[in-house]
């Protein structure tokens, strides 16, 4: 067996071993859940995410564990994160709805006109790919013209079609990303009894109690506190940062 074949075999075995270990860990966590040990299951799912990265299934199962522990804020956070990776998963949407009902934190996002519904039809990740495809089509068409020219009419027609479609699709995707750029600043309140403060101190006067599981928009930060605005209302104030974890990773 040549060295390259041995190397390939090693890589394959490592990958297969990783997949097997992950699947076994997932099975263990699921077994804990099915046995009614939701705390152990939640810890196992979180450990899986920390070790191997977030997957839609792990986040969804973590949400189920938190739901069973009646920790509705963390459950909503896990479901919302799962829906980032798998935006049209019916199980995620159904359980998210149940968690919101249980937390009395109904989705108070305003009803959208048809054009906003179009922009919300895909996830931000999917819109990113739409923009890339929209940019690649004109670029490849131009490159083909530059390299070979259009010796035949159908080639020219195809290139013009790719150019037009690329520009339209890319523009739509870019507008969607621009319109939804603030979603990076969204967070979920996970504290059971959150109280917004007028200033970033524990003793500051209360500005309101938005309830667990509410979607908030993150603002300024100060000494471990973050200023949040509650989505769908005029309520805003300061919360400890740990009580409002962001939906998406921050800082990069």
């Amino acid at each position, binding site marked *: 067996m040549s060295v390259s074949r041995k190397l390939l075999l090693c890589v394959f075995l490592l990958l297969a071993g990783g997949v097997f270990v992950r*699947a076994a860990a997932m099975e263990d966590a699921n077994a804990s859940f099915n046995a009614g040990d939701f705390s152990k299951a939640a810890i196992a799912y979180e450990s899986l995410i920390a070790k*191997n990265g*977030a*997957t839609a299934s792990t986040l969804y199962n973590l949400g189920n564990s938190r739901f069973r522990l009646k920790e509705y804020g963390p459950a909503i956070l896990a479901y919302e994160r799962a829906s980032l990776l798998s935006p049209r998963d019916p*199980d995620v949407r159904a359980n998210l709805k*149940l968690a919101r009902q249980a937390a009395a934190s109904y989705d108070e996002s305003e009803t959208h*006109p048809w054009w906003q519904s179009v922009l919300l039809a895909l996830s931000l990740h999917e819109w990113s790919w739409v923009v890339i495809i929209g940019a690649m089509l004109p670029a490849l068409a131009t490159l083909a013209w530059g390299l070979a020219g259009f010796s035949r009419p159908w080639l020219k027609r195809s290139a013009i079609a790719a150019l037009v479609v690329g520009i339209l699709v890319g523009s739509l995707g870019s507008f969607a990303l621009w319109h939804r750029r603030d979603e990076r600043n969204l967070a979920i309140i996970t504290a059971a009894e959150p109280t917004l403060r007028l200033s970033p101190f524990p003793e500051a006067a209360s500005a309101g109690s938005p309830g667990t599981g509410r979607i908030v928009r993150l603002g300024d930060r100060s000494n471990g506190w973050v200023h949040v605005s*509650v989505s769908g209302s*005029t309520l805003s104030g300061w919360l400890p940062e740990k009580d409002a974890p962001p939906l998406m990773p921050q800082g990069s």
Partner: protein
Amino acid sequence: MLRMFLLAGIALLTSSLLSGHAMAAAVTATLEKSSIPAGEPASLSLEITNGNVTGITPPTLPDVTLTQRGHSSSTSFINGRVSSTVTVIYLVESLKPGDYTIPPFSVMVDGVEMKTAPLKLKVTASSAQAPQGLQQGNTPPGANAAAPQDTSSFGFVTVEPAAKDRNYSWVGEIAPVRIKAWVPVDAQVTRVAKIQPGGSAFTLHNLSEKPEQKQEIRNGRRYTVLTYYAGLSATKAGIYVPDLTLSATAVVRDTSRRRPRDPFDDPFAGFFAPSIQKDVELKTLSGDDSAIEVRALPLDGRPADFNGAVGNFKFEHLNVPNQWQTGEPQSVSAVIGGEGNFNLLAQPEVQPAPDWKCYTGQSEFTPKDAASFSGSQSFRFTAMPRKGGPQKVQLAFSYFDPATGRYESVMSPLQNIEVRGADLTEGKPAEAAVEAPKKAAATDTLAPLHTEDTAAHDLLPLAFRPAFKFVLGSTGALLMAGLLLGWARSVRHDPARTAREAAERAEREAMHEAESFAARGDIAGFFAAARRALQVKLAAAWSRPAQAITLADVTARVPADSPLVEFFREADRVSYSPPAEPQAENLTTWRARLREVLQTLNPAVPG
């Protein structure tokens, strides 16, 4: 010498910076005024310098209220010293005249508890215009709602629910309210900001932008009343006071700058005191009568399709096609009108639900009042029948009626439709996937665990990662490369350029040939080659084939005495009667003339 100065300067700067870092933390509290009238606030500033604040414990004092107003922080670098200051502003207020000593503030700075010095505050009797019942203890019990205490001479805020038949609310219910800001006509309030909810479990919805303004008399005093419309909703069960604050700017007489004198010394009661602008807050009053009980929505009888809508709703319009085909989706529309939180109204479902598959569609709300409390919501979605044959269908949705305290399921009238085609078989993967949440909702239990793990992904969408910019930059580079290549190719294959280069090449060859004939003294050969060179040159200029350019053409376009015509004429003559012997010496003149003619033809040839 210069080096010594530099070293000394660096040493001085370093010691300054070190000393700046080593500055000790300090906490001070200062009062804006040491004497205030009852009912008027004074500003108290708590300054913490050079330290990381982890907690502040304000003092408590009977009859004196201390309300945090805001905070600011600053960092300065003066003479090499770094200084950071955090300032927390409080409003101190009392309704009872007397001499007070405000106890020290306790501030945790870098883990060490520090205390401020006590402050002296004198509260004098309020002005004569203070309304009755201003002071604590004068108000009859239970009279708060009817005659609120005006704790500020600049006014107060009242909240009036539109529905007065019950004194409780439900979680999620948006109760339409009138919010009135009462400003005494003699208080010069110049600007009002938006109303903000304070420390309560209530949230404001759809607050009207521009208030209605009119004057009203309340408890014998005339007020300018700004009326806003909004929806007030509670997010959790309990008993709360709707606490609202309206920030405003008022023009007041700054009597603090005058010497305290006997009132009889100032017959104009401070009329000539200078005016200053002051930020004031109009607040709602806390009291048992203004508290609202918020009840949790009951779990008993909660329909599976309930999504949090609280109010009173009904179908206003329906459009369900009469002809269907199993497995083929069609559009269904419905308009639901009424009052309540429309944003939580779920899309109606086609019944009987097992025979239909409904997709999430679009909805649009049309308000009918300023607070968007009443209105109608139109739904347009796609439905697909699973079962063939004649059917009776209806649309259904549910809501919670706050008046009766019960869930209501609303059904539209039955409609006869015809569905062509055979029944769809169950068990298709896509169908099963869509069924899962409905089953879960129907039994109010979670959808089951996912056993199959998927590939790990970054939660951060691609658009927010640096790689996205790199990919877009690469496509831009590809685009530019394509454009450059295309330009280079078009330049390379330009017909005019090709023709010009061919003409130059032919001219060079003809000239070379002519020179060769001239060297040998071959007159006929020389003139034939020279004419060919001229024809190539003229062909490029006149856009004609070189062979087609004859003496006649040249004569028609160029003056007859031109050297060009003379050259063509001589070439014709030599070709018809060539000389018997080589005459190299005669060709010297013609060679020079040929170069001259070609030179003149270089820029352009008339014609």
